[in-house]
């Protein structure tokens, strides 16, 4: 019996090692093959700025649109709810490259919306706007879902109690429901921000320029191999890990664990 358990532990252990080894390997590679690392100068900082600003903007837009939707999904009892929930999961489970393609058919240069926008001087692709459009499509479901989980966790009794104390529905939302769901929403927004920073497939199809960090890594890699993409990768890796740690802390504080996300 002891023996069988050890085999199971071995199998699990292999997986854990397979998760961390590549990350150490990247750092190790950097230390070892220092000479092959080339600096891209301005490319790095402009990619960082592009990624940071578009990701932040996408999170803000997703919150504005997603939180009301989440409240509806949490409180509505009609059958419409199930259907909307299904739709929210579409972009979440769609391959990123497919998301990019479908967005292009809707917003690309040849499309009605795309041409209309272009004639008013707004470029929906190959622009910051294009990046944001792709990111919102991909990340907003995370915000909707974590806000919904947050709203679900607020006992409706508290809302009834608030209203029996004379507060309206809207007052109750701002004073009771939203504050009590806030941590979940913030954790969701952080998660969404991390996803936006790392999103590649959909973004690269909507906007090859201006380059986000993932696009910059891709371009550097295909033009100059690992050494060329190393610096950018390290930066993105470190910032992703910071977000993971923050979400983890957040998760503990709100009493859940990562598995809630």
């Amino acid at each position, binding site marked *: 019996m002891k023996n069988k358990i050890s085999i199971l532990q071995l199998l699990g252990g292999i997986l854990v090692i397979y998760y961390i080894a590549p990350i150490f390997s990247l750092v190790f590679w950097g230390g070892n093959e220092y000479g092959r690392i080339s600096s891209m100068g301005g490319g790095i900082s402009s990619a960082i700025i592009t990624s940071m600003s578009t990701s932040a903007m996408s999170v803000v837009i997703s919150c504005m649109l997603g939180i009301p939707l989440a409240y509806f999904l949490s409180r509505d009892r009609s059958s419409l709810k199930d259907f909307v929930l299904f739709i929210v999961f579409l972009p979440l489970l769609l391959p990123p490259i497919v998301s990019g393609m479908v967005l292009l058919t809707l917003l690309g240069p040849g499309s009605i919306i795309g041409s209309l926008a272009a004639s008013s001087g707004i470029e929906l692709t190959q622009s910051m706007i294009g990046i944001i459009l792709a990111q919102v499509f991909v990340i907003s479901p995370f915000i909707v879902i974590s806000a919904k989980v947050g709203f679900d966790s607020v*006992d409706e*009794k*508290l809302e*009834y*109690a*608030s*209203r*029996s*104390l*004379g*507060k*309206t*529905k809207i007052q109750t939302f701002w*004073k*009771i429901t939203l*504050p*009590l769901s806030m941590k979940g929403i913030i954790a969701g927004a952080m998660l969404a921000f991390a996803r936006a920073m790392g999103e590649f497939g959909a973004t690269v199809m909507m906007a090859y320029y201006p380059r986000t960090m993932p696009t910059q890594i891709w371009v550097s890699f295909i033009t100059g191999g690992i050494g060329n993409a190393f610096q950018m990768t390290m930066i993105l890796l470190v910032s992703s890990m910071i977000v993971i740690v923050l979400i983890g802390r957040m998760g503990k504080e709100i009493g859940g664990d990562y598995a809630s996300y």
Partner: protein
Amino acid sequence: MLHIKSVVKSLGNFLLGPLDLIVENEILVILGPSGSGKTTLINVISGISQLDSGEIIIGNERVSEESIENRGVSIVFQEDALFPHMTVLENIKYANSTEEDINKIVDIFGIEHILDRSVGALSGGEKNRVELARAIISMPKILLLDEPLSSLDYPVRKKLAPDLRKILKRVKIPVVYVTHDREIAWEIGDRIAIMSKGGICQIGTPEDVFKKPTTIIAAEITGESNILRMEMKEKSGNERVVGWGPYNLEIVAEQNGNEETIHVSIRPDDIILGTQGGGINWMEGEIIEKIFKGHRYAVELNIEGVEENIRVNVPLDHNEIKNLKKGREIWVHFPKKSMQIVLDN
């Protein structure tokens, strides 16, 4: 004053009402088993659920169409509904209230020392007090309590109940208090309404509903009871003779039980055992079992030819207690005034 007029509310298979009820400046306890519709009643009074038909009048206003916040009701829920992101004081201040009111309420409830605590740091009993204080300070026209003590441990609950009644009497707001716990009902209520299957089948003082339950469910929920099926043998005025086969029992009929077969309720405490008997409402039975129950012994008796066994409570200091053994024949007396005809529903 709360006036409920022909209220009907259906929920899936369950139907509440048609229900009529008037609550004056009193504490009305709604006592009923789970599933009898107590919470549904609270919900329609407060506006959490909408009525199908009928009217609800609070004070002098028809509020049936109003939303919760405009009805002038406060609810204290079964489980804690304090706002967890606020302190005790913030919870109490949540309803717009003057400094003066707050001081008064804090004083009544004796919660001054916990005002700055966070809600999570309170004990069950403290939470209860704070929630009640919060409900009362908003000056509702009617206070709805949905088993507010049921989340507490039994000993704590027993200790809190008398205090709760004192406070509720002191604030002079009409109260509807819903519970399935008769011990609490006796302790709290001015009047008790027995609820069953969405309707109210009896309403009266605690003594009345305990001593004279009118339905089987009322007999069962107000205390242990022998519910005995008997034949109706003779009627004259409100006197009845009932019984089984050769056995006759004289009883007083408070209500019609006109069928040939009726149900009679008698509390195990009211039946008398004696070493000698005879005469009206005395008969002989055999002891089937004697079980120690703490404050008393529960004796189970069989009367020859009677299908149901009869449960009798015997006090610990009964003269014959040592001799009440399995198999013994003993005289049993059913006092005339302790028996009630109870209806099916």
